[in-house]
């Protein structure tokens, strides 16, 4: 190990992970902050702030996950599945709350 740029993994897989970590992780943290703002038992502005306070920990964890995952594909799936799930629930709550 510790031969990062000459590792058996193809270079494209490394690039894919970096993109997943930086942008995918950020997107996941963003969706998390929206989703959790629906759940927190506080008034809207405070719920948004409260959810965002946690989102930076989610971002950090997401980056760690991306580089810990066995493959780049798994890394992406690990971001996309919870992201899509939280996104869908947040959307449902938004629509449900507005109705």
């Amino acid at each position, binding site marked *: 190990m*510790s031969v990062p740029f000459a590792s058996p993994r193809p270079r494209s897989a490394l690039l894919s992970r970096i993109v997943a970590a930086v942008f995918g992780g950020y997107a996941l943290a963003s969706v998390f902050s929206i989703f959790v703002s629906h759940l927190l038992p506080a008034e809207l502005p405070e719920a*948004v702030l409260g959810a965002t*306070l946690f989102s*930076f920990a989610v971002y950090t964890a997401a980056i760690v996950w991306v580089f810990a995952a066995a493959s780049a594909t798994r890394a992406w799936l690990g971001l996309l599945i919870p992201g899509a799930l939280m996104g869908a629930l947040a959307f449902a709550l938004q629509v449900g709350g507005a109705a």
Partner: protein
Amino acid sequence: MKTTFRQSMSWLHTWGGLWFTWILFAIFLTGTLGVFDDPISHWLREKGKIGEFTPLTAEQRADAVRKAQAYLQEKSPRAEFWTIGLPDDENPELRVFWRADDDAPVHRLRLDAQTGRELPPGTARETEGGHHFVHMHFEFHAGMAGIWIVGAATVAMLVALVSGIVVHKKIFTDFFTFRPGKGQRSWLDGHNALGVLTLPFLFMISYTGLIIFWSIYMPAGILARYAGDEDAFFAKLNEGPPPRPMQFADAPVHELASLMQRGEAAIEREAGFVVVNHAGDRSAAVRIFGRFDPEAETDRLVGRSNGSALFDGVSGETIDVQKPNTVRGGNVLQTQRTMNALHFVRFGGYPMKWLYFLSGMAGAAMLATGAILFMVKRRKKSANEFGGATPRVYRIIEALNVAAIAGLSLACIGFFWINRLLPLDVAQRGTREIVLFFALWLLTLVHAGLRPPLAAWREQLAAVATLCLALPLLNLATTGDWLFAALARGDGETAGVELTAIAFGLIFAAALRQLQRRMAKPAVDTRIDEKTGAPANDVAPATGGR
């Protein structure tokens, strides 16, 4: 071959850490100096010589505001904002700031409080003062771009901390371990000890740093739940009056002196700042801020309001009054304020500031040892990560290490020298100082690129040590004031700055001596230790691994 969790974290720690370490070191060093921005400003502005400031009477304050309003009215009748800073013992002149619109630069000028005229350059040592380091710390004097760079680096810091803990196998058994004089082993020990012992501080300071700019870094919640209307969001969050959007219709600004007097009466405290938003527009609003009271902050973690009064900027009608020492907003907002307070360390006075200073410097040293460790390992044996380009990449990393660590230190102490050596009467003096600071830093990079790495280290360390140790002499030569005079009159701020500079000078001199010793003999070989049979060696050999 399957890589283990620790191996992936090791990769992440090494490379994620390396690419961000230079920026992070700059953030840590300047932020740590920024803990003492007030004493540094005190030194840079030669306040020790100015003597006691006599507070303005109510009539003088009203007069100063009248003069400032006339000045601003002439310079920029329509503006996104005007700000008038009343003289206080930190800033004995009348200050005005304005910005024509969102995209325009902020103008800042100092006026004579009696005549209302611009102070000509050279009447006082115009300088950004200790705030220079604070601005370096959170934005590198680069506005929004700088804030984003610092934010990205801070996330990288959190990732490096998490991965660093995973990599550091023997975090508890090695808790008290530092074995000097053993080359790579010592750098690793130092890096680990500095990191582990300040770990709570490092997590706290990084996370709270992100939280300060939470709405810039993570605006998704406001975008999705408030349709991006930040003004409305923050008005509600802060339990303040609703925002006043631009109306694009001309209307004269109400007489500010009387608003200031009404504001002072309403909040029962002297005014510190008068701010006019949307000056010249019908939507104008005037806010009177109570003078900042540092005493009131010392004993509590979260400072309380200094009081403010908001008026309609055209009719002069009172919109809102918040008394001093009151708290607005719910529990979550208080949580966020607590996190800000933890970052800014306005609480607890000097003992707490010193603890932050020590922890911050330890953090900076941890980053520096990490960056150096990376190269120390590879000087002995190239890991050949970049194929044929490896030697060139190493060369660049070496140069960046020197310029980022020794070079920035040189630029920081150099800033104090620039402040004393730059003539007093140059225009835009405060900005020039900062430009020269960057020029000096750039010069260290050029130097590091041209000289062999160890020679570059030696020369820059020597320069830093010299400039630090000679700082009191520079002050004596240029202003006639210095350490002993300051000590004699009990000016702890001036003396503190110079004593701290001397302490750093000694540390850099010690580092220089170590380096020279190391250059005098061939690279340290770990086998030598086994021959001498020092008991500390029976622990594991260098773990390598990263």
